[in-house]
């Protein structure tokens, strides 16, 4: 074997990887940033031969910092105040062998498959009608920003990003939905704009949509899961088979579970939400997930999920909420993998 003088760097994007542009869509406080913050831990604890790597300094820093924040500081990320743009590389083992291995130590390794994931995380308010804009701007002061910038530029960023994206992570906080019906409120205005741009010739939107119901670990949600479980046939199993036997709502039941949870609310518009979803997107490109970014508390000594002591958050004296124990993400990685087209042992 001829020894090459230079170590062979990772192949450039165009040769080997796939770019998955994913939009993060959801109402304020629906858990978007916490979901992203738990992503690295979700990858690390997935049992898959998979890595999540930042493509730029800021993206790498977010991964490191949010892991540090959740695991060690036991803090939740701040509410998003400005648009954040992350680019990560999701790589996993299983591709064909490298055609010309360059170092003896990696000579036998198969090539990694790569998917570049670009995620735009924006304040949830930008997805709604939000501000109280007068009927006509005629009576408003004429404002020009900076060197002539457009004040509505941020709105455009959201829509342009959605148009570019192949996948959408559509996050719903079930608690907030039940309280205020926020999911549909922050869904339909943006959906209208998207449809205006893409559906003028008819048809449905081409995106894959992962509807992610967050905060599964919240006592209200979990207790409903218990009730839901009891209402199902014997085949339904709320708990994972392997230790520590975390609760998990399977994909088959996720939508029904969410609908049933919201049915108990007078203000929820979940039926409108799901109806619009299917009206504008293709049925086979929609999937529901029930997730928890921080997961359930597990006693470090027993190492087993305890139905009587599972809450993983704790309220401090200063009214802030902290993480109680380890981070055990539930269904955090799965929506991303589904959007990426990943299946075990197969290229997306």
């Amino acid at each position, binding site marked *: 074997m001829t020894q090459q003088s230079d170590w062979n760097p990772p192949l450039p994007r165009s040769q080997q990887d796939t770019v998955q542009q994913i939009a993060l869509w959801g109402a304020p406080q629906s858990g978007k940033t916490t979901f992203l913050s738990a992503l690295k831990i979700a990858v690390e604890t997935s049992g898959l031969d998979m890595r999540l790597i930042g493509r730029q300094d800021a993206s790498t820093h977010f991964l490191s910092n949010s892991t540090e924040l959740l695991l060690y500081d036991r803090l939740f990320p701040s509410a998003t*105040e400005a648009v954040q743009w992350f680019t990560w590389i999701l790589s996993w083992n299983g591709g064909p062998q490298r055609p010309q291995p360059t170092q003896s130590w990696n000579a036998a390794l198969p090539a990694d498959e790569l998917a570049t994931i670009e995620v735009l995380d924006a304040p*949830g*308010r930008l997805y709604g009608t939000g*501000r109280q804009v007068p009927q006509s701007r005629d009576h408003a002061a004429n*404002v020009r920003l900076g060197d002539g910038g457009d004040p509505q530029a941020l709105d455009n960023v959201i829509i342009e990003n959605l148009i570019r994206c192949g996948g959408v992570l559509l996050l719903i906080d079930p608690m907030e939905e039940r309280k205020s019906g926020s999911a549909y409120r922050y869904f339909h205005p943006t959906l209208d704009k998207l449809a205006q741009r893409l559906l003028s010739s008819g048809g449905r939107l081409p995106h894959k949509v992962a509807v992610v119901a967050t905060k599964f670990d919240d006592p209200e949600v979990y207790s409903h899961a218990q009730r839901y479980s009891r209402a199902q046939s014997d085949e339904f199993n709320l708990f994972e088979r392997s230790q520590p036997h975390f609760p998990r709502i399977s994909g088959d039941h996720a939508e029904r579970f969410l609908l049933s949870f919201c049915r108990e609310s007078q203000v929820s518009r979940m039926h409108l939400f799901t109806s619009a979803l299917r009206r504008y997107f293709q049925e086979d490109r929609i999937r529901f997930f029930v997730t928890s970014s921080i997961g359930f508390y597990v006693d470090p000594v027993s190492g087993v999920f305890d139905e009587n002591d599972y809450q993983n958050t704790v309220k401090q004296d*200063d009214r802030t909420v902290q993480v109680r124990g380890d981070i055990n993400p539930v269904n955090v990685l799965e929506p991303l993998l589904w959007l990426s087209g990943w299946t075990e042992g197969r290229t997306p």
Partner: protein
Amino acid sequence: MTGQPHRAKLSAGWAIWGKRPGTSGDYGVIEFSKEPGLHDYQYDEIVRYFSVGTPPTGRDLAGSLPWVTISTMTVNELRYVGMAIKEPTADVDAAGRPITRTRFFCVPYRPFADGRVGYFTLYRALAASELPVPGRDQVRLSVLPLDPEALAEEIVTELGEAAVTLTAALLLRGAVTVVGASDATLDQRLRFIDAVTALLPYGFRAASTAATWSDSVAPDTIRLAFAAWPRESTGVVRWHAAQPPPVDDDVAAHYYKELRRLRDDQPGTGRLASIIEFLVRDTTPRLFDRSNSAVESLRDFDLPYTVLADIRQGLIRTAEVRRVLTSGRITELPSGGRQDLLAALIKTGDPADLTLAADWWQEAVIGSPDLILGALTARARDFLWRPAPDEKRARGFLRRPSRDEKTVRTYLEFAGAHGLADGLLARLILPTANSPGPATEQAALVRLVVGWLLAGHDPAPFTQTRDALANNAALACTVLARLAGEERLAVTALDWLRPALGSVVEPFTIALISGPAIVTRPQVSLLVQHDPTCVQLLLDAAVATGRLDWVLPGFAEWMAASLWRGAGSSASAARIAATWLESLRPSEASGQAWIDLIRLIDGTAPRYLLAPQSDPGRYCAVFAAGWDRLVGQQSYYDIEGRLADSLTNYLRGAAWAESEVQAATVTSIVDLLTAQGRRPGLRDRVADTVPGPVEKALRVFRLAASRLRGESHS
């Protein structure tokens, strides 16, 4: 600084942007001022547009709050400077997450600029302002102006002049991120931003955006920001680290170079303070998309010296020279430098700049004005040499002045007003090797000497011009030839030129004004020595004044002598001169006789001998007298033989005897030439030109008899 600095009185509109405690909504405007008439959603748009990220959770991190963001906007066409102060609060939202609060302020640019307010002092004043103000009134502020001396000291001793200078220059190219400043305090960052902006014309504060921190995770709209990592597509400056200057040939490099030049010139903080002081005064709002104006502005700091240095290196920027003069800053220069600037303006400026030059003449021109004269000559020659737009107009400019030629007169007038007209005209006349159109230039110069100098001025003091003409006899003769028919001007010109060009002036005096003297062969010979063209011009002048008779004898004698030699420069000149005769068409019989004699000397056919004559008697008399004169003057050449040969050769083929008129002319001439027994063989030689012995004898006899009887032949 002397006395208490004047505090700027400012009013600021404001908004509080945040979240109400315990709520689950997103960030937005909570309260806002009535003035300047913005809606809450507009404040929201402004704050979000200039947002630089989400603050990190946790304290004492590089990006921990507070953050200060500086922005700009126009509201109903009025410019404002915005400042957002984002701070932590003790409150949490419904999810238990800490809430931040942003106090946003907007201050009208004009009073801000008039007060020379800096960002740091503005921040101090705003940070101390309690919001909301009761009644939603504006915040009233009293802010100290920038202190250039203190800022200069701070730049040199604390902030790092290299980094501040580099950042200022790079900002003109685009956005800049300052990295490696994690340990810098908010005050230090704001002071750095203030210092950087102070090294640009103050007017850029109408468009400057800056932030003490950006999280770099999304493109922002801020031009200068501190961050942990370089923001996308931004220039990078490392805090307190050595770094290379801008290398491209663009506005950043030019500005940096100018700043360095000013500082290398005088490294002390006093100079830096002066630069800041100068830039601070420049408050006209500017935009970064016209950032080149900054270089020009900075050059204004010591513009007279900058311009002078450029000029001495051979680079003249006329607009800048003009600016130094119009602003009166030429007086900042020593007298030698002033003269250099004035000369540069004249050399490259427009005729209109001569007014400006005249205004500053007294202050600028001391001692020898050679430099100015050189500039005037160069610029006047530019116009003189400017090519005609096309061939047709180029031909036209041989006859009439072009607009550029008229411009040269403006320069002459200007020079005249400062005692330099003689020098300028003389320099213009001096021959140059690289004139693009010598004929056009010559024609223009003649018009200038005749039309501008002789017709409009007393030429007596123009001795340099006269000397220049003495070295360019062809031009002098062209001038004189041009004066044919204008006796008054001709007298003036001849009197003026005589001391330097006597040998040229004399034959022209005969041709132009005086008689009955005659041009002599030596005079023609001297003219030829100056320039053969002079003889042609003399003949032209003589034709125009009707004095050809006074010129042609000497010319004929010169021709005879020159042609006799057969070779050499004189002979060549004579052969060329012979061709000029082709264009000469004298109307008088005397002139015609001389032309024919010259042609006979040259061996060519006479033009008038056998042609119908208006005054045949006069023709014959002058012809015969001229023949005698030529032979008499040129006794050492066989002119007699040459003339006789040429005449008989011509008559041999001319059948002159068949025309009574022609025969009479020939016979008359022969009679005159052979009178008193002279030239005994000539009669026979002429008779021999008639074909056939019997007829010849008969005809000659008849003619002779007819002449003797005074009868006409029938």
